Every structure is written in C-alpha cells, then in structure tokens.
C-alpha cells in the first residue's frame, strides 16, 4: 500500500529509505525530505505540551495530487515517513497506524541487535522483508 517508506534518524538523515516504483526514486526521496519540515513543525507544536501527551502518530503530513504523506515519530526522535498512493482510497487511518506500529516494532527489533550501531543504515533483512510486505500490496 505504501509506495515509499523511509526511516529518518534524529539528526534528520535517512537510516532507511525504499520506494516501490524504483524508477522514480528521486521524486520520493525529495518528498520525504520536504516532509521532514512538516514533521518538525508538528513535533515542535506539540512539544510545548508534555512529551507524554505527544502522540507518536502524526497523521497526514501533507497531500499532493498523487500521493499522501504520513508521518510518525518515536520518542527518540526517529521519524518514519510513509508515502501512499492517493488513488488508494481504501486506506483508512487505522491501517496506516497499524503499518506504523509494525514499522516501529521492526525498528525496535533492529535496535535490539547488538551488532547494529545506532546511526547506521538499517540493513536488516527482517526489516526489509517487513517493509516489502507493506509495500507489495500496492501491486
């Protein structure tokens, strides 16, 4: 369902970015990059309140004519950005939330690996397969 999934580190560099239509990757990379501003905006807006009250799921960051971009932030300021096809109207908010939850769980599993240095690119095959499972449904 997602056409592009990206994991951005706290310092706003990508730990993992992958898109399905591999020919147009640059466009997706750019969209993810620009969405970071929106993410930061949402974080800071909510950050005035206690962090506890801040929800991890940020919701729709911004829509374009073709795509919708959703965001999710963890408590350690790691951001997940997902780009979905606008034509896929069957996607409900709950499904997006569940997808982010799966992403978060897989990310946690990657973190648990002692051979993973925080800040490295994510090369875990389990993570890859999980993301693929999320993206494959588009086709």
């Amino acid at each position, binding site marked *: 369902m997602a056409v592009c999934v990206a994991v951005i580190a706290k*310092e*706003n*560099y*990508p730990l993992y970015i992958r898109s399905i239509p591999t020919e147009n990757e640059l466009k997706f990379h750019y969209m993810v*990059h620009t969405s970071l501003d929106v993410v930061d905006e949402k974080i800071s807006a909510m950050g005035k309140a206690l962090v506890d009250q801040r929800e991890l799921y940020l919701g729709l960051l911004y829509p374009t004519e073709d795509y919708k971009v959703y965001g999710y932030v963890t408590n350690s300021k790691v951001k997940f950005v997902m780009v979905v096809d606008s034509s896929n109207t069957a996607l409900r908010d709950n499904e997006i939330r569940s997808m982010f939850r799966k992403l978060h769980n897989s990310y*946690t*599993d990657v973190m*648990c*690996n*002692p*051979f*993973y*240095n925080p*800040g*490295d690119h994510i*090369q*875990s*095959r*389990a993570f890859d397969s999980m993301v693929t499972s999320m993206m494959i449904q588009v086709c």
Partner: protein
Amino acid sequence: MMSKTDADIRFGNPAELHGAKVQIPYLITEKNTFKRMDDEDKQQETQSPTMSPLASPPSSPPHYQRVPLSHGYSKLRSSTEQMHPAPYEARQPLVQPEGPSSGAPGAKPPRHQASLIRSFSVEREPHDNNSNYPDEPWRITEEQREYYVNQFRSLQPDPSSFISGSVAKNFFTKSKLSIPELSYIWELSDADCDGALTLPEFCAAFHLIVARKNGYPLPEGLPPTLQPEYLQAAFPKPKRECTLFDSYSESMPANQQPRDLNRMEKLSIKDMADFPVPAQDVTSDDKQEQNKTRLEQNKIRLALKSTADEALPKDMSEDPATSKDSNSLKARPRSRSYSSTSIEEAMKRGEDPPTPPPRPQKTHSRASSLDLNKVFQPSVPATKSGLLPPPPALPPRPCPSQISHHNVNSECSAQPKPPTQLPNFGDFRLQKQSEQASEAEIHPQLNRAPSQAADSSPTKKDIPYSQPPSKPIRRKLRPENPAPESQEPSSTVGGAASAVTGKPHTAVQKQSSKQKKAIQTAIRKNKEANAVLARLNSELQQQLKEVHQERIALENQLEQLRPVTVL
C-alpha cells in the same frame, strides 16, 4: 573408500551446500579413521566440511584438539583461514584422497575439515537418521553442542539464563566475520528479538557462524534444526557419556519421552511460543514435540546445572588427544563458573574484573602524604587546609565535644595546640585563637586545645564544664567570631573554674590528669578519624576526576561515532 567419499563429496557438493551434513574433524586420529568407516558405511551423502569454529576466541583455545587435516585442504583453506592453525589438525587419511579433488574449489570449502581454527572435534553425523529435516549442514552434532555449551558457560555460567547482547557481540566479533553478516546471524538466531541469547539461541548463532566460516552461505531463514525448540529438544544431557556417536534422532526420541511435568516453567516457554517455524509446518507432532521439548528443556537445564561436575570430567575424557592445557583451560572457567550458578553472582563476578582499583594506591599515597603532613607537621596547616577543604559535616561535632572537653586541667593551658590535630582546616586559626585564649586567660582549666581535638571522644562528657562559646574556635567556619566570644566566656569560665578548683584541688588535679589522658586518647582518635576522612575525601575526589575524564572520553567517542549527516 576414500575415492568413494571423494566422489560423493564432489558429486554432492553443489547440492550439498545446503544439504550436506556438517563434518567435524575428529578428536583423535583413531576416532577419525573409525568414524570414517562408519560414515562411509552408513552415509552416502558427502560429508560437509567441519564447521569452522569461531576464528579466534581466546577463551576457547583448542578445547578439542583436531586431527590434523591434509595439507591440501589447509592450502585450500588458507585463504579463508585467518585464525591460528595451531590447534588445527588435519585429518591425514581423509585429506589425502581429497587433495586431488580440490579442483572443485566451490565444492571444496564444504569439505574442509581443517576449516578453521576452532575446529570442533565433534563427531560427524554419520547417518541420516534425522531425515526429518533436510538441512544437514545446519544440524548440530553432539560434540559441537558440547562445545557451544562450554562456550556459553564461559560467557555466562548459568546455562539457563541469557547472554547479553554486548557480551555476545564481543564474543562473536572475534570470529572475524563482517559486521553485517554477524548482524544477520543475530537476526536469525535471536528468535524473540530481545537482545539476549539463551542457550539454544546461542548455539544456533554459533553454528551459523561456524557454517559461514566454513563457506556456507547464510540461510534466508533459520533452519529448522537450529530453531530453539528443536535445539532444546535435542539438547543432550551432558552426563551422557555415550553421546559421542549418538545421532540426533536417537537423542530426540529419548528426550521426548514424557518427563516430569513438574519441571515445567522457565524461559523456554517463550521461545517455544514465539518462534515462528519458517520452513516447517507446525504439525501437531511438532507441537507435541514442542511441549515435550519445553519440559525437556527445563529438565535439561536443571540437569545441566546438577551435572555440571559430571560434564567436566566427561568433557575431559572426550578429549584424550587434546592437550591438557586446553582442557584445564576449559575446566578452569567451568569450575570457576560453577562455584555459583546464580545470575547475580555471575554478573557480580563478571563485573569485578572491569573495576580494578588502581586508584586507591594513588589516593593512598596522596592521602597518606597528606595525612602524614597533617599529623606530623601541624605547623603547616595553612597549605594543607588549602589543599583539602574540610568536610562540612565536621562543624557540628566539636560543639558538644568542646563543651565536654573543656576540662579543668591545671596544666593544659600550656599545652600546645599542635597535638590537637584538625588536619584539614584552620590550624593556624586554632593556634591564633589558642594564643589569644592563652593570652586572655592563662587558666589551665581551659584546655581548649586538647579538647578541641578530642571533640569526638565521648569520654569527655563527664566533664561538667560547659563552654559552648569556645567550641567554634577550632572550626574554620567560624574563624574569628568565636575567638572573641571564646575569650570572653573563657575568661568568665576561667574565673568560675578557678573558684571551683580552689576547693577540691587535689581531686581536680587527679581528675584533670585522668581527663588529660582521656583527652589525649580522644585526640588520638580524632586524629585517626581525621586522617581517615581526609583519605576518603581525597579518594573520592580522585574518583570524581577520573569519572570526569571518562565522561569526556566517552563524549569524544560519541562525537566520533556519530555519522556525518548525508542527504
């Protein structure tokens, strides 16, 4: 025989890469030859090369001495060999015929029994009894398992508890595999993704590493023979001496016999429940097996603990050819580890070494020097006080003691202050004040100086005299204020004391002498206490400095490790 094996090997190698049995070099040459006969008789599959142990685990010097491999193989393997071939022994008979077959390098890597440094002396799985699972190279043989268990124990004495991620990382990094590969192996083996390895998880990870070093490509998913349930089920009891040649199939049915249900619990349950069986359908048999394995695992773990001692001699007996050094080396950690099987003790023990206390020596010297200075050179108090600020807790102390310590001592007026050691602070004040006091009042009863030092001594309570204002004289915190005060009350007290002393003069004198002695003992005690406190203070300060330095170093490291932002 050899040629047949050779042909099998060659023939089967391409296909065997994933299905070949793992061949482990034998412990002894005799065993090897014997085994070979067995193998050839029973098994038609090519023997996959021995699992290469981790490259250079210093903690596991050749626990099992390997039969020397042929030079041909060692040559073939030399490229992949990075570890010390010292413990590695090639198996002469088997190697020679296979030398010429080295023309198939692709197939050869599996054949390398001389694989790597840490070759196991595990007996090769001779037969295909475990034909339930086709992944032969992923099957752990008995000796391999023993080896893994020993390695596990060297890292974590309690076989039923976890190896933490960092410990395992350090251990597996020694295998010199690349970090991504190790990361992937961890992913495969840590079934519950908790960042820690249980014994079956550890065995699986170890086995994968060995396989990888032997040239096997890593599987896409955890093979069924490496899954925690399977490993726990097939986990042979260490006390079983005869397991050398037992196949897994034999051990498994034996283990699957109904065990005491009372032994249920422990952490295996979560492994069972959570681990998804990727390539296998979880049939009802498997579930049954899992239940039994669960029980079995608990029982095994308890048995492991209880039979640790048995395991020790058994392992030693298994390796007659191995050098006693390796065995003793292995045995030593085992014996050490089994002195206590509790996790906390293990952790404590594990944590003891990392905290060597070199500091006390430095602080000791410093503190001792300071103490010495204070003790023996009271005339240089100013500098010392500058070096060590007196602990703030001290001030309240002298108050009661001073009160009590102001004894009516006839001769104490002339007593010098130096004996009353207040090392840290204002000795000069003390002297000054005492000088003032002595000037103001020469009455011997105001034995401020000794009383000040002996503030902590409770023996002075009996002294009726209470001279609160004179207390602060000693305290550096109230350097000057008490001085005039002390002089005034001291004068008044001195007057009263003089009146009092007029009557029971002799008694007072005796009393005063006793008190003097008591005061002196109190002074001594105070000096000691002061010395101890000063030492403690200096030690703590030293520790603080070191911690600061460590922190700075860590922060530097963190800065270095943080990757440069790329976009």
